[in-house]
């Protein structure tokens, strides 16, 4: 039974998609707009089922473009909101990820990744949208991307995604994949008082001559919403602190630099990774999402054979833990980066590792997960070769 706040406290046996829906409800999301697309549809189906009983509004829009902007309308009317999609729909949403970044609209984009490009393999997993999540919209901006590897994490990280979106007023991507989305496992939902939910920061000051886009110390301005009498303006054009279009080189530099810097200066509060045995390692396997699970048998096998192998798993793919990779690069002889794509995050590892260390991708075009042997083979070759 749900309590008043809609949280389904207890242990459940559900898949990642459904866990994501429950995470959104627990995070206080009460507006979802979506468009059917495999393998993400179960998320919105559960939302559609549940929302009438928790005070939420779900609408199936006419396409992903509409969904990704309808949520932003809802945010400016005071709701926490998200949309859910997969590859082709994610491609359609790119302009609105940029709009959310430019207008500092806190919102969550869930992408249950499938193999692409184009229609690709609709029912099969991949991690091919990692660079698109970071760079897909035009121009310079920052986003946050989280990579769950289990239904439990789909629940936990959806809450985290909302909290980060609110805290930094950025679009946050939950980068699931078909495997994590359809995997059924035990998911424990804590009581609401044990769930940390970041409450939106609202400006409460004077209405006359106030500056809705004037940042606070953390470079993030507080929110306002329609209907409260502030008579504010929001635009995707380059704008000043008043929110007015100001198309000058100076305003562009100030605004766009801040949009990027607000994540950089708060990096330590955002970046998260898990390490296992990296301190004594000669080789570190860097993983994220489902690949963090397929790599484990390979790492264990190599350790059994006496090799000193560390495991660094990215929780936030973006922002990327550049400093940590740079630090570790001086201690190991190689990084192995298995991904369900032909090499994406591996570029980021290479960029920050420098030239003194070997960086080896273990690429896979997607459609299924890695055979751990492929990862083991790479480890073995680098350690013994």
């Amino acid at each position: 039974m749900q309590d008043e706040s809609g949280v389904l406290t207890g242990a459940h046996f559900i898949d990642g998609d459904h866990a994501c829906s429950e995470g959104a409800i627990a995070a206080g999301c009460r507006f979802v707009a979506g468009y059917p697309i495999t393998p993400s549809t179960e998320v919105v189906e559960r939302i559609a089922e549940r929302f009438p009983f928790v005070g939420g509004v779900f609408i199936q829009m006419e396409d992903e473009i509409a969904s990704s902007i309808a949520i932003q309308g809802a945010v400016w009317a005071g709701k926490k909101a998200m949309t859910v999609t997969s590859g082709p729909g994610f491609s359609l949403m790119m302009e609105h990820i940029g709009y959310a970044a430019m207008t500092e609209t806190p919102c969550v984009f869930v992408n249950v990744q499938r193999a692409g490009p184009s229609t690709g393999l609709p029912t099969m997993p991949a991690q091919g949208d990692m660079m698109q999540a970071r760079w897909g919209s035009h121009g310079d901006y920052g986003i946050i991307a989280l990579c769950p590897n289990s239904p439990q994490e789909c629940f936990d990280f959806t809450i985290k995604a909302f909290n980060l979106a609110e805290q930094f007023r950025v679009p946050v991507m939950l980068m699931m994949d078909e495997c994590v989305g359809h995997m059924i496992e035990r998911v424990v939902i804590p009581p609401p008082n044990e769930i940390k939910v970041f409450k939106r920061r609202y400006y409460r000051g004077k209405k006359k001559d106030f500056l809705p886009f004037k940042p606070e110390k953390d470079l993030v301005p507080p929110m306002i919403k329609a209907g409260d009498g502030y008579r504010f303006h929001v635009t995707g054009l380059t704008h000043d602190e008043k929110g007015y279009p100001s198309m000058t080189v100076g305003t562009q530099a100030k605004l766009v630099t801040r949009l990027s810097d607000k994540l950089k200066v708060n990096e330590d509060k955002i970046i998260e990774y898990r390490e296992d045995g990296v301190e004594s390692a000669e080789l570190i396997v860097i993983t994220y999402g489902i690949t963090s699970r397929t790599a484990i048998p390979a790492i264990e096998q190599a350790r059994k054979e006496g090799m000193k192998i560390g495991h660094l798993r990215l929780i936030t793919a973006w922002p990327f833990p550049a400093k940590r990779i740079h630090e570790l690069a001086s201690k190991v002889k190689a990084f192995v980066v298995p991904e369900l794509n032909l090499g994406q995050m591996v570029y980021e590892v290479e960029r920050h590792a420098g030239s003194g260390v070997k960086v080896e991708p273990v690429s896979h075009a997607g459609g299924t997960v890695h055979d751990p042997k492929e990862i083991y083979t790479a480890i073995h070759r680098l350690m013994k070769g």
Partner: protein
Amino acid sequence: MADDVLYTVEAGVPQNPIEDLLRMDRIPHIWCPGCGIGSTVNCFIRGLQASGLDLDKVAVVSGIGCTGRVAGYLKLDSFHTTHGRAIPFATGLKLANPELKVVVYSGDGDLIAIGGNHFIHAARRNMDMTVILINNMIYGMTGGQVAPTTPISATASTMPHGNYEPAFNLPHLAESCGAVYVARWTTFHVRHIIKSVKEALLKKGFSFIEIFASCPTLYSRRNKLGDGLDQMIYFQENSEIKNGADTKSVGVDFQGKIIVGKFVDIERPVYHEAMYGHLKEKYGEEYMPSDEIKEFISGQNGD
């Protein structure tokens, strides 16, 4: 010298009855001399004032283009969104807080070409919003390209040999898709626009007003139709008021007759009320609408 002074404006004192609803710190606006958009904004504000609505609860959403700049000049909660997507943004605003009166104010290219899909679906759903479409029959901001509203044989920068694509008949499109209020005017019909704006704002559901406006810089000049005043004379001499006209019959040819008037004014269940009513009937007390929807609907019913 004194004879040359037509009037004086005292600093800080509103001189124009619509000034309170304009962001005067953003004036002068970007529109060309002779452009009709400014006149429609004047009419919109007067219609809004006449409606008696709580101005703190009115939100205006625009897309991109010349008309897309309207939101930024209105002293209301205003959103300048992406190209073609004002309607779905407005949908999110409205469903999150039905207490807001949501107005979409944008151009023909924005709402009907790139945004056409959203237009037809919002009308189908009878989403509670007023859509004001300024039809200048051309893409103005980008330099005079053909629009889905450009009449056959008119010239545009991307139809340099004359247009051979048929134009949309927008009142017919809106009515066919389910709009509950459909009116069309030209910038010549200022009093009619004001009245229609007031009616549309007070109408529940998807209300639609098309306003023909001159684009002297990119439409009239290229088509050798003179300036803004000449286009106004065209509107005056060639428009005919036919309230209740069959929308099938109101298509507009190049420099042809423009049938104007209020064509549609019907009742149909509004989206958020239909949602509330259906779920309430099905689930009774178990249904938990959002606080905003619950308060708004019970306020309306006088509960």
